[in-house]
């Protein structure tokens, strides 16, 4: 390609003007903001992050207490946001694929009910769905005294879902280390495409794990929830807030995931099916070997957008009282008055997370490109 000198009037001038305007706008905004802040005697500093937060956080993945600092409160919120995002993404795909298949199936009832479900969740706002599910859980379910027990050891009340957990008795550290190493190694090998070696490593991990179990004389002890004065104590508790967020968001997101999967499958030309059959593959084989790899590439870009939406929609947990990053930032703002700093932290956090999702999905896209070829 011949390198051409750029014409001043059509290349440099418009860009100079544009850049100048944008810079002027930004400068004007900076002047306005600093002027306004000076007028209101507001200061900018991140020093407050070390102060004691003092406010409680209802529940969190990470350990938090009101004596921790604001910085840790933010981290706690981030942890909750990540938990929501990851769980919703995984669960919505697991639910979305069968929904998409049901919508494509020849079975009339399955097709119609899946279609009605997908239409329903996609065409109503998530806020309403969250409020609805929270109402269902807190108003319709019985109080702890008359808990509903679908299975032994599982209790369903308006205080949430209480599940019996199994705790390991004895020194479990070597076992945990072995399993972690095995899992990481398997995942790495599988990612590199060395499926054979991955299966050997995973089998080896199981064998070593079982040997350790017997050698260390480990045992299992169930932790059964029992009724205290007010609530169930012990076991694992999923609060109504978390349950409503997960239930509502997963159903909502699965509707979108189903549409993406369906569109991806539909976008593979019908001739590919015919060609696969002509080569003697049966339906399942042609789906797995021919259709899915091609559909996957088509699905990845809309899936990336969908995952970012899940991240952004996790802020709606606010309406049912689940504390995630956005809500904790707002509370911090209220207790410290450092609105600008909190907002900046918040915006940067979400941009980073959204960017991270895009990067990860692009990496996946490059890998799929290699399979497809």
């Amino acid at each position: 390609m011949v390198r051409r000198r750029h014409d001043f009037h059509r290349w440099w001038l418009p860009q100079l003007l544009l850049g100048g305007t944008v810079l002027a706008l930004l400068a004007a905004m900076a002047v306005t903001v600093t002027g306004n802040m000076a007028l209101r005697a507001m200061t900018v500093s991140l020093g407050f992050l070390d102060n004691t937060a003092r406010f409680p956080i209802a529940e969190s993945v990470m350990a938090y207490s009101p004596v921790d600092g604001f910085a840790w409160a933010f981290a706690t919120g981030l942890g909750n946001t990540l938990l929501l995002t990851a769980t919703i993404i995984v669960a919505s795909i697991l639910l979305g694929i069968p929904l998409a298949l049901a919508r494509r199936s020849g079975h009339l009832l399955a097709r119609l009910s899946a279609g009605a479900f997908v239409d329903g969740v996609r065409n109503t706002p998530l806020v309403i769905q969250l409020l609805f599910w929270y109402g269902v859980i807190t108003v319709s379910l019985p109080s702890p005294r008359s808990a509903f027990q679908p299975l032994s050891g599982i209790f369903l009340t308006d205080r949430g879902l209480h599940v019996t957990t199994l705790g390991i008795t004895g020194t479990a550290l070597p076992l945990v280390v072995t399993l972690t190493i095995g899992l990481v190694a398997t995942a790495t090998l599988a990612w590199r495409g060395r499926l054979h070696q991955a299966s050997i490593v995973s089998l080896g991990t199981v064998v070593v794990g079982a040997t350790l179990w017997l050698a260390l004389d480990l045992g299992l002890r169930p932790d059964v929830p029992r009724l205290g004065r007010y609530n169930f104590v012990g076991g694992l508790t999923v609060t109504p807030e978390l349950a409503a967020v997960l239930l509502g968001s997963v159903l909502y997101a699965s509707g979108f995931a189903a549409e993406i999967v369906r569109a991806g499958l539909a976008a593979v030309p019908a001739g590919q099916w015919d060609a696969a059959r002509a080569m003697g593959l049966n339906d399942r084989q042609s789906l797995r070997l021919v259709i899915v790899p091609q559909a996957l590439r088509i699905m990845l870009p809309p899936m990336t957008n969908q995952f970012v939406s899940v991240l952004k929609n996790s802020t709606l947990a606010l309406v049912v009282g689940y504390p995630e990053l956005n809500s904790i930032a707002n509370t911090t703002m209220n207790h410290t008055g450092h609105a600008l700093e909190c907002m900046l932290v918040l915006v940067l956090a979400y941009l980073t997370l959204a960017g991270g999702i895009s990067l990860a999905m692009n990496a996946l896209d490059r890998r799929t490109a290699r399979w497809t070829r």
Partner: protein
Amino acid sequence: MTFVRSAPEPVLPPPPRGRDPAASSTFGSAANIVTTLVIAFFAERSLPHFLAWAFTNGVWRGDAADCRDAGACWIFLHEKAPFILFGIYPEAERWRPLLVVSVLIGLTLWTMPHRHWTRATLLTWVVGIAGSLLAMAGGVAGLTPVPPSAWGGLPVTLLLTVLSLALGFPLGLGLALARRSRLPLGRWLATGTVEILRGVPVLTLLFIAAVMAPLLLPDGMRVETFVRALVVFTLVSAAYLSEVLRGGLQGVPRAQMESAQALGLRRREVLLIVVLPQAIRKVLPPLASTIIVVIKNTSLVMVVGLFDLVSAGRVVLNDPAWPMPYAETYLMIALVYFAVCHGVARYALHQERVLGEGGR
């Protein structure tokens, strides 16, 4: 023996392909029978309960006392519907939001057929929206002024949707074109703007607009919360729409532009007459999804203190005289949204079919 036909050959239907007839698809194979049974099992477990709740035990007349220990409390909705639909708008003036809602819905229905896509319709829209805003705000023609903080319910939802789409579309088109510009600076700026708007949750943006706006604006300048929410929704829908339009623009072959230019059309005409219609035709389904996202986003304004359907619903549920019929209330609000969103989706499907036939 003759080889000349005296009657035309009957047109044969295409060979069956795809969907089986209902009966065989439901009971045709072992797998299908199992699926049917599973669905039937769930239906049997849930449907009778639902029907009993909604109809047999539903309370259709009476008062709050009748709703205790009964099924669906429909009478509650009958009582509270005006408040849910129009919020805290002064009672004596409720005909105004009602008028606005009718005008907006009427205009939308009128615009749907192709033959109504004219200059006159566009003008009517502009007049209709301006008139709606005036009718809501009052202060002219002897109408009592009602500040936007007292607007509520359905008209707020509809106005925000219509305005943010109408203002966001040209903005989004501009962003999409800028991202395809030959000037790198233009591309970077547009990309940065779109990515920031798409990466930050709408709730966070609304919060910034709600309480941070006075810091960003010159001192003493005030903007109504309604307008701030509108600015956020406009920017967000512009960012979403620009992504969709960009995809469509990429799909229009370069030759189309070149041949249009060869015909002597100016650059603007090339864009509006030749390129854009083809681009939009290519992206109708994602365009409809984006519009639906914009509509659903309006349900978030409750966090900035605007009184939309959802916040009105939350308020009526707090009436201690009633036994908290949350399911009925949220179902009703969801139904309003569903009607609008589903309508958009259906219309887009219809257009896709019509325009698809008209296309190449």
